């Protein structure tokens, strides 16, 4: 019981000390260390784990690249998928080892080195020629024959499968491209049709404008005729009134004249008229 309590309290003390220590260390090593989580217990040394180009710790932080326009620089994967295995001689010695020797010893260098090394191992009995060696010899012969006779066939059939897989992916890609191309073509078609629609609408607009014009003119004509009719009415009325006035005036004048002609006057006028007529008759003769 007391042991348990002791271990618990020691755990608490250890945790406290560790938190203090980690805070201190974080403060000191902040330029070198990338804190991984919000907890202050875990920190990861930047120079150890950020060595790979794809490690997120080696990406610039958001604030640092604000001046560049806000885009973080993500490195692309430089290497490609290896379609063939690396070149090698004798099936298991890589070609680069021969290049390593080439500048100093030329072409025969690595072979001589191999020979001498094997000679050293065998003659000094560092490599003992015992039962493993002889079974190894037979195995080398087996492997040689397999690699020469059967391996090309197996390799070719496996390559066919790889090519089939590639073809499948390419086919999917090509189909998708075709779909996109048809979509583009259809979209262009639709755009062309839409332009035709514009022309159609222009024609319709003209049509409608013409109709409006015609109706306007018809109404203007009607308006003119109505106004003219009213004005004609007034004119006719005035003329009629004038005629009536004239007629009445003449009648009144005549009436008054008839009234003003006395019997005396009438006699005189008639005598005068006879005289005038006699005179005229005498002149004519």
């Amino acid at each position, binding site marked *: 019981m007391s042991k348990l309590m002791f271990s618990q309290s020691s755990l608490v003390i250890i945790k406290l000390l560790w938190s203090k220590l980690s805070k201190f260390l974080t403060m000191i090593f902040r330029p070198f260390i990338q804190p991984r989580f919000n907890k202050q217990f875990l920190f990861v040394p930047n120079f150890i784990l950020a060595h790979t180009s794809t490690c997120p710790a080696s990406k610039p932080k958001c604030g640092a690249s604000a001046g560049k326009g806000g885009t973080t620089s993500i490195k692309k994967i430089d290497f490609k*998928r*290896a379609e063939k295995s690396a070149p090698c001689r004798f099936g298991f010695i890589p070609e680069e080892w021969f290049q390593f020797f080439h500048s100093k010893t030329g072409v025969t260098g690595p072979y001589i080195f191999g020979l001498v090394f094997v000679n050293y191992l065998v003659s000094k009995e560092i490599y*003992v*020629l*015992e*039962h*493993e*060696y*002889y*079974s*190894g*010899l*037979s*195995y080398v*012969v*087996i492997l040689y024959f397999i690699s020469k006779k059967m391996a090309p066939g197996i*390799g070719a059939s*496996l*390559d066919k*499968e*790889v090519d089939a*897989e*590639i073809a499948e*992916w390419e086919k999917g890609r090509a189909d998708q491209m075709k779909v996109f191309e048809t979509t583009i073509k259809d979209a262009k078609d639709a755009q062309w049709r839409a332009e035709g629609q514009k022309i159609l609408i222009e024609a319709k607009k003209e049509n409608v404008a013409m109709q409006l014009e015609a109706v306007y003119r018809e109404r203007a004509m009607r308006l003119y005729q109505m106004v003219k009719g009213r004005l004609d009415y007034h004119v006719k009325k005035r003329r009629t009134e004038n005629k009536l006035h004239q007629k009445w005036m003449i009648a009144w004048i005549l009436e008054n004249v008839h009234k003003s002609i006395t019997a005396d006057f009438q006699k005189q006028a008639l005598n005068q008229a006879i005289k005038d007529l006699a005179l005229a008759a005498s002149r004519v003769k």
Partner: protein
Amino acid sequence: MMTNLFSIFDPSTNLMNLPMNWISTILGLLFIPYSFWLIPNRHFIMWNFISKKLHNEFKTLLKNNYFNGSTFIFISLFFFIFFNNFLGLFPYIFTSTSHLTMSLSLSMPLWLSFMLYGWINNTNHMFIHMIPQGTPYILMPFMVIIETISNIIRPGTLAVRLTANMIAGHLLMTLLSSTGTNMSFYMIMILIFMQIMLMIMESAVAIIQSYVITILSTLYYSEVN
């Protein structure tokens, strides 16, 4: 120089008294292909081909007991034992499956788990399956005894079959090759030829033994349910 014919099976590669030869057990892990790229390479396709074939085989055997993923353990068992057997044929690589500790550690837990599951959960079913259909009534007690004994020795047979095959093969190879130390050059050619034959047979045995052990484990599993 061999002190003893069986000294190839002694763990003797030491590093501060720790036997390092058992590391050859996990050598098969290096042969598992990567799936880094979208497009598979030959190695990956080969691996997938074998896995699929095995999967179909086991699925057929499991019949009604099959559920998604029940073949994984058997496929991984196959590859594990296969790599251990096959790589042990190469010189200087220790064959870990030639030790009964290894084979028994594989077969005993499998068998024990199947039996415990079967007997505790499906007791009647297990009792029924002890006697094949159509046996005469007189033979039934004897059948029970025989079936019980055969059931009990199953982990032993699984382990010992594997171990014995591996030991026999390696022993023959070692015996044959150890005569090569004191031979003339022309005799060595004949020796190599005979060893090639033996090697081919041993490779076949390696594959077959791993297949057999896996198939039998599948069968034992399918019997239980």
